[in-house]
Structure formats: structure tokens, C-alpha cells
């Protein structure tokens, strides 16, 4: 992928200084000040025709009997090549190293570093058959949303909707060379407990044609049954600039049908023992409509396959919450500020069902 024609690349690069200031790790301060329920993660998605890569650096405060809460680091890699597969690696706090400027984090042999030219990620787990070096350069400006409700807690996030990924990644004995592939990043932090009465839908849509200047992100936080929405928004970027935000009543998301296929994989795999079954509530399609000043934007996403990631409930000893990581195609049509959009994109949708 090239920087879309007309994009002010130099300006975006200068914004990297802003990004580096804003995208620092919060845990050393916030998790120390008030440890209960604290969670934080850096999430990256890289798109390539027929291939998706999700990388997640996660920290969560977890209790241990007779000891203070401690940060448990995890690195999650989920990859789609023909089908989804993945690895969840859990480490101890002794394996976690955070730089003094809070811009770099190393978890075991894995690392993520924010520098003046973007994010550099190293994944190194030969015993699991995965490894790679990624350099992700933002081509759009970041956007921050703070203190949104998640059960009894709050969640904040920083989005970088579009980046260019270069480097290589190896999984399942296959090595992929990445050359300016479209990518997405979000960074989330807050205090909440898995298993409380909330769920979310989170999606990134990037055009299949690198010349298309549009990028979309949709987020919605709901109750567990998805009957009540606490927060929802559709964001639209043109080149590096956020040009439209459809919030709450100005946006609606309708799900249709159910995807008639089982998950490609369950992570961690032993959780298949307790999740059981092959039924899912990943929809067959989702239609997101934003309306603003008489202009309408529609994004229709059709999931193709998905991976199931289970998180133990922090509320019930015998329950889990499930995140479905879904890949598929999206068709976008609409008008923004008088300019017509009509393009097909690659989407990664995440459904969290509490």
C-alpha cells in the first residue's frame, strides 16, 4: 500500500510525535494508583489479501491468594491463513519490562516500541511456530475516546485507523513478506471486570484498493444482551483526517441472520471443553448506517470466518466471556461532505458477548 494520493504524509509523520506522547502505556501509573480491575492492551490488525494478523500486548491486574494484585502480561497472536489459528502466551510480571518513557514494552521475547516513525513489533516464539518483525507507520491521525462505561467500570481507547505495515511474519511454517500492507491499531485501558453486564462490537474497515482514501471504524458498547447501547459511533477518515463522526442516535447497526459455521479455532484451546458446541451468534451480515446533515453513509459487512477467544469471567467461577474475531468483506456507500464513496474493503469485526 502507498500513502493514498494527496495524503499529507509529512504532516502525518510530524503527528507521530503527538502519537508517541499520547500512546504511552498507562499501567505503570494507573494500575499502581488503583490496581483493582485494571486492564490495558495494545492491539494491531494487519490486512493482506487472504491473510489477516492480529497481535495483542495485554496487561491485566489479577489477584493471587495472600499476595497483592499483580500485572499479568499476555501476548495474543491470531492469524488467518486459509483458516484462523492462534497462540495465547501468558507470562509473569518478572517477564514484563516497560521503558522509562512508557513507550516501549517487552513481554518475554516479544516487544512493542513506539518511535518517531511508528510502531515496531517483534514476535518471537519459535516453540509455537510464530515469529515476525513488523514496522507500522501511521497514515492517519489518532483519535481518543475516554471513560466509556463497561459494566461497573470505564474503558478508554486510542485509535489509529490506518497504518502501513512492512516486515515479515512466519506462522505455521509459512513466512509472509509485508510491503506497505494496510493495518489498524487501537490501545485500550481502564478498570472493569470480565463477565459484568456489558458487551461490545468493534470493527475496522480498510479499502481493498490502496488508492482509496477512506478508513472506517465502528464501536458500540452495549449491555450483555445487546438490547441497550451505552455508546456507539461510526468514524470516517479521508486520508489522514477524521472527516465524519456519527454518534449514538445518528448511527444504527442492524445484524441479520447467523453465520452458519463453527469457529475455526478456540483460544486458549482447552476452553473448547467448556464452551462446547458449534453454534455462534456471529451474524451473517451487519449493516451500519450513519446519517448527518442529510447525508447517509452505509457499511455492510459480511463475516466469512472467525476465531473464538475466551476470557475467564471475573464475576462467576464457572463462566467465560467470548470474543469472536471475524474477518470478511465490507461494502461502503454514501456521501461525506458532498463527496460520494463506493468501495469494497477488508473488515475485521470483534464481537464481545458478556
Amino acid at each position, binding site marked *: 500500500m502507498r500513502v493514498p494520493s494527496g495524503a499529507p504524509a509529512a504532516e502525518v509523520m510530524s503527528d507521530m510525535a503527538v502519537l508517541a506522547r499520547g500512546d504511552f502505556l498507562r499501567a505503570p501509573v494507573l494500575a499502581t494508583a488503583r490496581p483493582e480491575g485494571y486492564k490495558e492492551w495494545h492491539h494491531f490488525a494487519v490486512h493482506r489479501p487472504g491473510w489477516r494478523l492480529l497481535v495483542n500486548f495485554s496487561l491485566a491486574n489479577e489477584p493471587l491468594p495472600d499476595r497483592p494484585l499483580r500485572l499479568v502480561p499476555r501476548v495474543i497472536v491470531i492469524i488467518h491463513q486459509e483458516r484462523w489459528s492462534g497462540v495465547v502466551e*501468558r507470562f*509473569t510480571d518478572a517477564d514484563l519490562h516497560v521503558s522509562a518513557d512508557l513507550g516501549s514494552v517487552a513481554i*518475554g521475547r516479544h516487544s512493542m516500541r513506539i518511535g518517531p516513525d511508528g510502531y515496531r513489533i517483534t514476535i518471537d516464539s519459535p516453540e509455537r511456530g510464530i515469529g515476525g518483525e513488523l514496522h507500522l507507520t501511521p497514515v492517519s491521525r489518532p483519535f481518543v475516546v475516554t471513560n466509556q462505561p463497561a459494566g461497573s467500570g470505564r474503558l478508554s481507547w486510542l485509535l489509529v485507523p490506518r497504518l502501513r505495515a512492512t516486515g515479515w511474519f512466519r506462522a505455521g511454517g509459512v513466512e509472509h513478506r509485508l510491503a506497505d500492507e494496510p493495518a489498524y491499531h487501537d490501545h485500550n485501558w481502564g478498570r472493569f471486570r470480565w463477565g459484568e453486564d456489558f458487551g461490545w462490537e468493534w470493527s475496522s474497515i480498510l479499502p481493498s484498493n490502496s488508492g482509496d482514501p477512506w478508513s472506517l471504524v465502528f464501536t458500540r458498547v452495549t449491555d450483555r444482551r445487546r438490547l441497550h447501547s451505552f455508546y456507539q459511533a461510526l468514524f470516517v477518515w479521508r486520508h489522514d483526517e477524521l472527516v465524519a463522526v456519527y454518534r449514538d442516535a445518528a448511527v444504527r447497526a442492524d445484524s441479520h441472520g447467523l453465520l452458519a459455521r463453527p469457529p475455526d479455532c478456540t483460544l486458549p*484451546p*482447552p476452553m473448547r471443553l*467448556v464452551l*462446547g458446541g458449534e453454534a455462534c451468534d456471529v451474524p451473517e451480515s451487519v449493516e451500519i448506517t450513519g446519517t448527518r446533515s442529510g447525508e447517509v453513509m452505509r457499511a455492510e459487512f459480511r463475516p466469512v470466518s472467525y476465531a473464538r477467544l475466551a476470557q475467564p469471567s471475573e464475576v462467576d*467461577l464457572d463462566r467465560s466471556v467470548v470474543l469472536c474475531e471475524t474477518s470478511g468483506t465490507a461494502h461502503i456507500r454514501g456521501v461525506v461532505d458532498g463527496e460520494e464513496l463506493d468501495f469494497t474493503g477488508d473488515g475485521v469485526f470483534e464481537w464481545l458477548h458478556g
Partner: protein
Amino acid sequence: MVERAAGAPIESTTRSVVGVLRCSLEHLASEVPESYRHLVAELDRLVVEVVVDGEVFTLRTGRGRVEVVDGRAAAAGASIATTRATVLDVLDAEVALAEAVESGRLDVRGSLDDVLRAHDTLTAYVHAAIRASSVPGLIDALRNTQDGVR
């Protein structure tokens, strides 16, 4: 199992299935005591006889704990017979538990109530294990040893 606890202490005496099971139960009792108590409550008075390849052992509760006793049970409510390969395939999600039973790779016998209680106990064990930091390392130990030395 692909989740692991880097640096988790793994006992050198856990190369057999029964050794891994005993070690994991000790870790559950110390690391996730609430989940462990739930596991004990689910097993309750049921006695389960387990045969994995050549290993025979019995699960039962006693003194508020899950006890793993070598040998056959005098009066088991449920009996399970399988192989180490099947255990690993199920843990790795290569084979669903129901598929393992239907294909005969995992044989379960007992009254319906006892089999259901055994299943509830297994579910409680998995929920506890997924919350404990050291159990994934134990499963790696099970995977990486092929002999049955205890």
C-alpha cells in the same frame, strides 16, 4: 495447549498423567482456592475411576480436597478410559470432547447422573485451570514427555 506460563515452576515428577493431574490440583488449591473449592463441591461424593493408557487411578474427595489415588476404585460411580494422545488432542481442541466420546477414543461408563456429575467436575476443573498461571506449563510437560514414568 498454547497458553503457557513462562517461568512457571514445573515439577520434575509430573511426567505421567496422574503426576500432572496431582501437581495441577496442588497448584489450583494454592493459586485459585475459590475455584478449587468449587471443583471439590462438584465432585462431591462421586468416585471416578480413570484409565489412561497403562495408568489406573481414582478421583474422590476427602478432607475437603480432591484426592488422586493409585489403582482401581472399589465402587466407582463413573469410569473413564482413554489415551494420553486423546487427552492432548482434546486439550489442544483438535478433537471436541463429544467427538472423542462418540468415536470411542474416550470411553465413559456410569449412571446418567454420575456421568453428568463427572462432566460438571471436568468443567469446574477447566474453569479453575484457565485461571491458574502454572497449569498451562503442566500441560506442556505432559505434551513433552512420552513415557509413563511417575
